[in-house]
Structure formats: C-alpha cells, structure tokens
C-alpha cells in the first residue's frame, strides 16, 4: 500500500462472487506518501495481573510500562492503551484511512480494533525544509521539534540505545507516546490575544518567543518584563516544557489536529492528537507531562482524554517482517 498497490487482488479485479480483497476507496489515488508505523503496547507482554501472555514477558523493555496518572487526566479507557498500534500517515487522509481499514480487516480473528483516531494538519515540522503548522489554538506548534537533519539529536533523544538487556530487539527503534488532548475551544476563543500569547510564551503571528527575535530564536527566560515579572511568564507553555528545564530532553513530535464533530453541549470535540517519539518515556516524556499538568497555563484549556504507550521496533528491511527482532 505504501507503493500505491491495493490489498490482495485489489478492489475490482477479483471473482465477482466474492467480496473484493481491497476496500476500494484508494482506487485512482496515488500512494500519497503513505507510511506505516507499528508499535507494541505493554499489555502485549503482560496482562493486567502481570501474567505472561504470549511468552514475551522476558523481552518487555523496562521503559514499556503504562504511563502514570497525570493530574487533569480524565482518560477514556475506550480511547487508551492497546496491545498493538498502527500509525498510518499520508498526504491524503483517505489513503491513510484505507490502509488502517484494510489492515484491520486482514487481522479480524487475530486482533480487534480497540480505538482509532483520525487527525489532520500535521502539527509539527519534522524537517528543516518545512514551515511550522498551527494547532487548533491558532499557534505554531512544534517549533523546537527534533528535525530529520539533526542526526546526533535523533540518536540522543529518539532512537533506543542498547542499555536495556531485555530490549535488544528494540535497539534502533523508539517509543511512541500517544495522547488525545481535547481543547476547550470555545473558552479559549474568548481569551484576549495578549493572554493567549502569554499562556504560550510566543506571538501568535510569527511564533517568535515573547523575549523577541524570530520563530527559531531561543527564548530568553531571564529577560525582565513589566511588573517585576519575566517577559515570558513563569507558567508559559514554552518555559514549562523547554528542554532546558528537563535535562535537555527533546521529542520528535508527529501529532495531528483532530475534530470529532461536536459534543452534547454543541462544543467542538476537538484538539491535538499528540504523538511523540522518544528514546525513553521515563526521561523524555513523563517529567515533561508532569510539569505541564502541574504548572502550564495552557492546561486550563486542555483535557487529556486518551493515552497510550508503544514500543516501535526499528524499520523493516527487504524480506523482513514487522517486529521480526522481537518474535525471532
């Protein structure tokens, strides 16, 4: 499918007495840059009672544990967790949905779908050649993302190293943290522009830090502002999650905006489907999320409604299958 090929014998070339192998909605569409990323959740290795499910328990990485409860989490179990995950990304959402739909269909009987989430409008740059897209708060999001060109930073922050003897199969892979973050859109929209910018710590237009410069300028957290307060507020998002206060920890963000219609009160059921790839969630995600839950001004306008962690094995070479290193 990543080459633009259909599933099986395709959507229209099979026996007319049989349901088509391929569901057909991607007919005539190009591959659209489709990528498929697979991950394994903690529950694939052990069940809730800690019992070995498939003889893989001795290979469960130390860092692959359910994420802790964070303040403000109101997680929906039906949108959280899971044994396996597939992230399908494409330039055309129809192509991405086609991939997930056909893979799920192939898996019926062996696997079942626990939850899925459709997103749009990638929220972070993953290459220096891209400009930073905006989230549904209207702000550029993911300015400080690790970029594909930063190979040393990728090794340091994204790719799993060989320091866990049980996770040899994961060396060169990564951890995928997924968080469904609802935004209270209507309340946010009533905040004065000056307040919105103060919450984020950046200007809404260019995305420059409030301490000045351009989007990519480093924020100056010590710069004095009015009323004996720093110009970037102490609870500004950019300060609270900045690598400087988290031992230099950075993430490879690859999230999307989502709108799942409206809720019972007529508000948008919308927000950010946060996806980050990190070398170790214990050092690169949990402390950052804790700090955010505790002291980030933005949290007032956020509700965390879904959460999951997966170990993503390294890429598949010719003739290999997904997770070969784990199941070998």
């Amino acid at each position, binding site marked *: 499918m990543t080459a633009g090929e259909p599933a099986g014998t395709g959507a229209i070339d099979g026996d007319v007495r049989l349901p088509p192998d391929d569901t057909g909605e991607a007919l005539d569409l190009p591959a659209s840059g489709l990528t498929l990323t697979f991950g394994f959740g903690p529950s694939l290795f052990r069940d809730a009672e800690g019992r070995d499910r498939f003889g893989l328990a001795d290979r469960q990485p130390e860092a692959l544990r359910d994420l*802790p*409860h*964070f*303040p*403000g*989490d*109101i997680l929906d179990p039906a949108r959280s967790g899971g044994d396996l995950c597939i992230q399908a990304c494409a330039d055309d959402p129809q192509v991405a949905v086609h991939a997930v739909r056909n893979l799920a269909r192939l898996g019926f009987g062996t696997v079942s779908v626990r939850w899925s989430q459709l997103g749009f409008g990638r929220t972070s740059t993953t290459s220096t050649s891209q400009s930073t897209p905006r989230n549904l708060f209207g702000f550029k999001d993911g300015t400080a993302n690790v970029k594909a060109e930063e190979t040393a930073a990728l090794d340091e922050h994204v790719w799993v190293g060989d320091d866990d003897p049980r996770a040899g199969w994961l060396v060169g892979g990564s951890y995928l943290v997924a968080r469904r973050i609802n935004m*209270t859109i*209507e*309340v946010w929209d*009533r*905040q*004065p522009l*000056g307040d919105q910018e103060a919450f984020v710590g950046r200007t809404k237009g260019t995305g420059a830090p409030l301490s000045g410069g351009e989007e990519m300028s480093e924020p100056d957290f010590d710069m004095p*502002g*009015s*009323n004996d*307060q720093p110009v970037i507020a102490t*609870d500004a998002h950019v300060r609270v999650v900045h690598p400087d206060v988290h031992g230099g920890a950075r993430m490879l963000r690859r999230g999307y905006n989502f709108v799942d219609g409206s809720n*019972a*009160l*007529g*508000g948008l059921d919308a927000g950010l489907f946060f996806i980050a790839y990190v070398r170790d969630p214990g050092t690169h995600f949990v402390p950052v999320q*804790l700090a955010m*839950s*505790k002291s980030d*001004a933005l*949290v*007032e306008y956020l509700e965390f409604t879904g959460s999951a962690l997966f170990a993503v094995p390294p890429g598949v070479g010719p003739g290999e299958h997904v997770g070969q290193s784990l199941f070998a």
Partner: protein
Amino acid sequence: MNRTLLALCGATALVATLGACGTESTAPSDTSGDAGDVQALTVDSSADACTLSAAEAPAGTLTFDVTNSGDQVTEFYLLDEDGLRIVAEVENIGPSITRALTVNAPAGSYVTACKPGMTGEGIRGELTVTESDDEVEVSSDEQELVEAAEANYAAYVEDQSAQLLEKTEEFVGLYKDGDDAAARALYPVARTHWERIETVAESFGDLDPLMDAREADLEPGQEWSGWHLIEKDLWPQRAEDYTALTDAERATYADDLLAHTEELDTRVQELTYTVDAIANGSRGLLEEVATGKVTGEEEYWSRTDLWDFRANVDGARVAYEGVQPIVSEKDAELADQLTTRFEELQVLLDAQREGDGFVAYDELTPEQIKEFSDSVNALSEPLSRLTAAVLS
C-alpha cells in the same frame, strides 16, 4: 480545582489607553490660573481668537478651562495632528461661561480649535503634548466610579469570605459529630460562598489545591484533602468499593479544611482589586461555569453542581455590576447586552430552584443542560469584551 489564576494585585500589564476620552463639567473650574499645574491650561475663546495659556503641556490628564469671551456660543475641540479626528470636545459654552474639559492625552501634536458660532472649521491652533512620567489617568468623574467599584468589590469578597468561614465552621462541626444529614444539607450552602469568589480563592495557588482539588487533579504522591474529599465521604453512592473515613480521619480533614479557610480569610483582607481584575474575574467565573458546572464535573459525588453554578453566576454578576457604570459610559450597547444576558441566564437558573436550593444535576434533562450551556455561551462572548471596554 481549576487553574485560573487571575492577577488581582496589578500583575496585569495595563496598556495605557490611547483613545483619549473627554468629559466636561458644568461648573466653572476653580483651579484655573493655578500657575503651578502645567497640565491645567486655560483657553480664551473670543470672536476672532483662540488663545491657549501654553503651547506645550506634559502628557497626562490635561484640563482645559475654556472661557468664552466672545458674544456667541462657542465650542472647543482637541483634534489629532491632522486636525480631522476629534479627540475630545466641549460644546455649548455660552458667552462669559467657563467650562472645563478633561482629557487623557498621550504625547504628540494636536490641533486645537475654538468654534465661535459653531460654524466652519473654527479658529485653529497647535498644541504639543510632551513625554512625561505621568501615568495617563482617567478623568475625575470616572475615577470616582473606579474607586467605588474597587471598594465595593473588596467589601463583597470580604463579606463572602466571612460567611464562608462561618458556614465552614458549622459544617465541619456537623461532619465531625457524625450528623451527616445536616452536613449534607449545609455543604452546598457553605460552598456557595466559595464559588462566588472562586477566582479570588484560586489566586492563592498554595491553598486552592488543598481546599478544592478533585481526585483526578492530584499529582502522583499528592495527598487529597479539602471539600471534595469530604463530599465523597458524605455521598459515597457513586464510589466503587469505598471505605468510609473513621472518626479520627474525619476530624483530621475537617480541622484541616477549617484551618485553610481561616488562612484564606486572613489573606483576603489584604487584597485590593483593580477594575480590570474585577472585570477579568467576572469572565473567569463564567469560564468556571462553562468548564466545570454545566458539565456536572465539579460536584461529582453530591450532584449539587447547580448551587455552584448559581454562585459563580452571582459572583460574575456582582463583579460586572460593579464596573457597569463605567462600561455604560464607554460602550452602552455592551452594557445592555450583558445586563440582558445575565437576566436570561438567571431565569433558567430560577426555573431549577427547589426549596432553598436547586435540583440535583442528575435531574436535568440533556435538553436543559444544553439550554444552560447555550445561555452561558451567549453571556460569555460579550463578557470576554468587558475588560477592554472598562479600560478603553
């Protein structure tokens, strides 16, 4: 618990208002000719001249004592540099009458004009307003409104805090004595006083989590305390496998809540409020309604959300009414809209009254909840423009 931290003591950056506003007083000013005040100018408007006492004045609150020495009614205008836009004006100055015009004028070049006979473009001159350290202050009339609003709101908060303390004392006594029915009845009554001043209470970032945290708000390792812990113990029906607190535990949490309420009351006495903080507080309380009360999240165990809803709206309306005279002068349409929409929301609330209080949240139909939500949205939108209107 919520995280709205409204700056109450001037931590909000106030941008000096550029749109100068003028007010005229009908009585002749008795300060004219005070040579010591360089911001007090005199204007002599005659039939063929418009003579100011100075060609320069430092920025700030300028007063023009305009004396009509001609024999026709005159007007005096302060215009922008291009002489097109009226910054402030005083009209209807009869012969030999002096009228004062007060203007918050930032530095810049201005055009002055006397218009004897009220025709034509008038007799024009120039005025340079120079930079000064003087804050751009509001006019004396408005200053009175502002001071009244600030004092009234401080008194309101102190009064609510005192009642909160009194009711909390009574509540924890009942709870410790095991008089659960009476404690349950008093719970929403006492909390009404908290919810009316919730944005103020929440501004104490150390006390709020100890007093008003919900279970889901806790950080790993943080011990739960405060109102909602006791709420759960009094209404354990929705809890799974709940173990009731022992008498000793009850006493601990009850004493703890009372101690924090006393601390809150002490701190509240020290607070002062600016008009923009009051206006922001009004908006903030409606946000509390939108995010916690309409959705039935605040009082998960007791289902007394509508009491809190009403109390938040009370507090928001008191804050609004405090600044309403100022807004009425500056944006009467906004003031009218807000007044109407507060009334409309109140009608919906009153329809759910039961005895001295309100029906339980569970008794509302989805349609009624939606109606509340729509009404809150209808009020919140114009309310989000209140602070700017107050400062304009």
